[in-house]
């Protein structure tokens, strides 16, 4: 499978006065299409800086970052804005949605930004939101939704414009346990279904149960890469034990099958159940 994300000895060094901080140090990672990766590590390990570089929000000090074959480290800021808009989908920890746009308008925003908003785009946005259980909330404003619903809208927005890479920064931070598991499961299902590369920064090791690969960072370096499903499951269990007082309360939710082909213009991904 094709590498959507590839970093080559990428470093990010911050210099403040006489202090030099290596937030990311010689990191090499690869993420393929259809692969969902968790980027984990303690606070200050460099995972958010790494995410910012992968998101074309921050240029590396050294090394190279390739997303969908394009070298971001050589890209000018203006081009990076366009690249982000077209190739990357985002879910943030907070302030995810535009407060004065409805649920549907928030999702359609990515199509409008890319000048791809049309009737078909509108139908796809409605379809995706309906699949995420938000069919009756299309015209609600974000402040009329629960935290979990907001996060699902954000997931829909991150995918609607058919990006190569979907990034999530602590998507479960503001959710209760049940909604956190649901959100990540949905995220994982859609990434696999639509053959996207997905990277999620998280503190919560329990979420590892939904990913294909775990990249552990420590002091700016890649400390460990786990791809073995058994090891990933063990890591998720360890995370569960850490929070043992909180039982897993969730019933896995069934994502309804897509009625429309998800994206037009690319190889159509068969929807779940097809």
């Amino acid at each position, binding site marked *: 499978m094709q590498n959507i994300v590839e970093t080559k000895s990428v470093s990010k060094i911050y210099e403040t006065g006489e202090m030099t901080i290596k937030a990311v140090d010689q990191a090499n990672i690869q993420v393929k299409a259809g692969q969902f990766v968790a980027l984990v590590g303690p606070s200050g390990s460099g995972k*958010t*800086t790494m*995410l*910012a570089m992968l*998101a074309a*929000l*921050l240029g590396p000090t050294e090394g190279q970052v390739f997303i969908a074959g394009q070298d971001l480290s050589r890209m000018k800021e*203006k081009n990076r*804005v*366009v690249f*982000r*808009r*077209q190739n*990357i989908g*985002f879910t*943030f*920890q*907070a*302030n*995810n949605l*535009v*407060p*004065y*746009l409805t649920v549907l*308008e928030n999702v359609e*925003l*990515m199509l*409008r*930004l*890319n000048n791809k908003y049309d009737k078909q785009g509108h139908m796809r946005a409605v379809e995706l939101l309906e699949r995420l259980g938000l069919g009756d909330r299309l015209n609600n*404003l974000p402040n009329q939704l629960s935290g979990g619903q907001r996060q699902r809208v954000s997931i829909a*927005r991150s995918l609607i414009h058919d990006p190569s890479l979907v990034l999530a*920064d602590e998507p479960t931070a503001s959710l209760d346990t049940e909604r956190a598991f649901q959100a990540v499961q949905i995220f994982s299902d859609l990434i696999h279904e639509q053959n996207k590369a997905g990277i999620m920064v998280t503190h919560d090791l329990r979420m590892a149960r939904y990913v294909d690969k775990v990249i552990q960072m420590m002091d700016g370096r890649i400390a460990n890469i786990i791809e073995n499903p058994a090891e990933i499951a063990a890591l998720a269990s360890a995370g569960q034990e850490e929070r043992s007082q909180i039982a897993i309360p969730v019933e896995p939710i069934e994502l309804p099958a897509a009625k429309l082909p998800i994206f037009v213009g690319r190889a159509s991904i068969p929807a779940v159940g097809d």
Partner: protein
Amino acid sequence: MSFYLAIKEVWRNKGRFFLFSLVIALITVLVLFIAGLAEGLATANREYLAKLDAQLLVFQSDVKLSTLTSRLGNDTLTKVRRVPGVAAVGPVGLSNGNLVFTNGTPDLDVSLVGFEPGKPGGASALEGRDLRSSRAYETVIDNDIAREAGVKVGDTITFKSIQGTEEEYFDLRVAGITDGRQYFFQPSVFVPLEVWDKIRPQAVESSGDEALAYNILAVQLSQPAMQVEMAQLIQSQVADVEVADLVTSYEASPGYSAQQSTLNTQRGFTLLIGILVIGGFFQIQTLQKVPNIGMLKAIGASNSTVGLAVVMQIVAVTVFGVLLGTLGTLLLSVGLPQGIPIQFTQETLAAAMLSLMIIGPIGGLVSVRLALKVEPLMALGLSS
């Protein structure tokens, strides 16, 4: 895209934006009233001089262009008439008095203007006819008098004058009515110069033997554009006179410049307050939106999209506020008592509205700059 974001935000926060438009509307009302007051006061002060059918006025020298202090005689009139390039000269006498009415209308303070019929310095009748005889006790009156006292062409009005220590009453037949011709905040009564000399207030009663003296000469030029050159020529050929164009003349009226500069300063400060209020509102609004702007930039909205959306909101809110304020001002002005000298001309309204519409974007510049400086990294809680 910018328009979409701007309009959606305004529409979904109608209450907040409408309230702010109301603040701009109130500032507009204040600015327009000050502008209208400045125009009204200026008109009341200068209307007669500003509408004169002449290009230059000749004053006695050393009176600082004071119409009431200046005294000129026939000798000067003759000399000015002989200056090449002078098409016509009219002597003008100016004084004050009252009109008294028997129909219950209160006494009315007026400016009494004496001029030679057919010469510059008077006023043409818009209704009725112009004055013809230099001796008839006839008058052309300002339409303000006609409106306030209900006087019509053909009526007789009574002019009260203090001569010596006695109150004298003179009946004048209204031959015509002209447009607004206020001078020194009083509507004007135009009479033939010889009649003016007989009925004007004087320290001693006129015996009729004194040589006719008047205040100023109104000069029409063969080439109206050559005012500067002709003023110099008249001053060089006629002794003891000072010549000025109409604008210089009314700007020299007592208190005129001080009054106008006071009102213009008030207008300037009100506009400055407007800039600060608009700037403050959009600054606070943008500060509240910083995380949201960061998120928008992170997902791919360009700086120009975000900046333009802020500019569009500022322009929309300002234009709506100014139009609302203008409408409110015009409605309010209909209900104002007659005595308040507020006057709205198209030029005054347009200038004030334009200045108000310009201050919106100026006030919002800081917030646009702030919006442009927000880093998309903020969406991840980082900064460069």
